[in-house]
């Protein structure tokens, strides 16, 4: 009887201890993965051959993230530049200006388990963000 009582007393705490670190790792890893995606988009987009990041590149990026378990509909890409427009194939970003890329993704229910020990979790719609800025290398050969 006493043992069952002790177990019930500690049950939620044990659950939290065992499973919450795993959720934290998932959050950290997701953050790292979208950061990597930002780095990759910048590396390609800012290179001399491209000078833009358009929907085709974003589509490829979404495909890569889907294979790692992300939900494409919830991914949000924000691509701007120091010239305040989104560079496209028709309007590439010239050398010396910077690309600004941000990818965000909701935390979803990753922190819900913290309720077990009385910590108020993040809202479901709070988003993790990854951000990067790189200078464009593109030079228009016709100029």
């Amino acid at each position, binding site marked *: 009887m006493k043992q069952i009582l*002790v177990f019930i007393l*500690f049950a939620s*705490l044990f659950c939290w*201890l065992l499973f919450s*670190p795993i959720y*934290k*790792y998932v959050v*950290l890893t997701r*953050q*790292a993965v979208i*950061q990597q995606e930002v*780095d990759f988009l*910048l590396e390609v987009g800012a290179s*001399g051959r491209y000078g833009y990041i358009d929907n085709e590149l974003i589509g490829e990026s979404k495909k890569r993230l889907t294979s790692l378990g992300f939900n494409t509909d919830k991914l949000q890409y924000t691509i701007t530049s120091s010239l305040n427009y989104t560079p496209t194939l028709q309007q590439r970003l010239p*050398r*010396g200006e*910077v690309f*600004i890329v941000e990818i965000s993704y909701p935390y979803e229910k990753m922190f819900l388990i913290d309720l077990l020990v009385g910590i108020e979790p993040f809202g479901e719609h709070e988003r993790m963000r990854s*951000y*990067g*800025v*790189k*200078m464009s*290398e593109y030079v228009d050969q016709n100029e």
Partner: protein
Amino acid sequence: MYKFIIYPILIVLLLFTSLDQLSNHAALIHYYSYKYAVNRATHAAAMQLDKEALADGHIVIDEYEAQLAARQLLNLNLEKDSYTITFFEVVHVESENVPYHYVNKQWNIELYLYKPAVILVISTELPHMIKSKPSFLWNIFGTSEVVSSFK
């Protein structure tokens, strides 16, 4: 009764080990975000060519503009005041003595350069999630050669 002693000890132990691992993992991610920022800063700095020298056919990095660009890119990529620039150098490599052997004993840097380059070291600190543990300290090094399609 002994369970009331063993359980709390176990809980504290579990908590500290998982917090320690989490902190190490977060530190690794943190480090790489800074490393990428340094790479982008040197990349931008190496694109600041001296236009007058370029008109004469020489590829020379404008040191003042390079430093401005590096600072700008670091500011854009990282939080303000979370780092300090500890070393910045523009290396002028003449095309006659390529590959140029660059050695810096102070920062333990050894490079073979083929084009003019920018070298940057920033230092940054990240506190450990467990307060009693020492915080993570890094000197992060990055370099870029001039970005150009011509030789």
